[in-house]
């Protein structure tokens, strides 16, 4: 037997053995299990990190809109099927300019987008900006307004607004 013949014979023996493993049935099936893990996860995106209210005549502009315009808000969250997703905002304090203050409640907002709500800023209790049920990505806007009064003392007033997106 030549070397080539021996190689062919060995190959066929292996083939025969392998075919011995094969079923003569016309079909053979095997199963695999598919697993997908989805963990809880939220993401909040704001279009700007600062809002300014330019000085204006209270008689002409009683409600000063914030610049650079409405705040675009994107809320993304993976929650349990019936769980709430909540977005709130809390002021760090009243508006302060040195020792002078203006109540934070002089800042209000209107909102657009499903689940987003209007409100008034508060330095002690977080105020709702929006709420939703279940997972998803939602977009809306918040237009901040400053109540302009002749009684506000001159100054440059600041506060920090903290937005919190949470899911139980």
């Amino acid at each position, binding site marked *: 037997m030549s070397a080539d013949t021996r190689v062919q014979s060995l190959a066929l023996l292996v083939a025969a053995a392998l075919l011995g493993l094969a079923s003569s049935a016309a079909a053979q099936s095997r199963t695999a299990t598919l697993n997908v893990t989805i963990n809880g996860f939220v993401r909040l995106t704001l279009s700007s990190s600062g809002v300014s209210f330019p000085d204006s005549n209270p008689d002409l502009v009683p409600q000063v809109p914030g610049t650079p315009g409405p705040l675009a808000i994107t809320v*993304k969250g993976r929650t349990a099927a019936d769980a709430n997703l909540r977005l709130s905002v809390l002021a760090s304090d009243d508006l302060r300019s040195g020792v002078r203050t203006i109540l934070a409640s002089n800042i209000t907002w209107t909102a657009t987008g499903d689940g987003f709500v209007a409100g008034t800023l508060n330095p002690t209790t977080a105020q709702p900006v929006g709420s939703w049920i279940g997972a998803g990505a939602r977009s809306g806007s918040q237009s901040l307004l400053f109540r302009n009064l002749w009684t506000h003392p001159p100054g440059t007033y600041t506060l920090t607004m903290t937005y919190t997106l949470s899911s139980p």
Partner: protein
Amino acid sequence: MTSRTLVSSSSRWLFISGLTAASVVLSARPAAAQFLQLQPTTISFASADPDTVPLISASPIRVTYIALGQGAGSWTMTVEAEGQLVSGTSTIPISNVSWIATPTPTFRNGTLSTVPQVLATGTGLALLQSGDVTFRFNNSWNYNVGTYTQTVTFTLSSP
């Protein structure tokens, strides 16, 4: 031992005579013979941020098979999901799972469905061949938290 072999390149029918160590006799019109093995048998997709990982890939599955079409005819390997991805009362459409497979053209890419989808095709004898199938999952913010499962069935058949 003497052996004589002849392999027809056109039909791939095998004639074997004089083999004393083998019990398999392949006739001129062989019946269908199939062998199918998956390794591993679990396809797992880890949780990931949909913004940064919009398409999650699982580790490849090695599909090893022996296929012999009826009368040297064609054979087909299909893959089918038994339902949607389920976690309690939450579901994710199984169409969010697709696959890429090699080598081509024997193997082809596709999307899972509850009806069989063709994964590979061939004719005649495919002797201990293998392919790699990588399943991919469309990631989204719209999925509720959970561990979703489903059974996927691979079937090798000849008409």
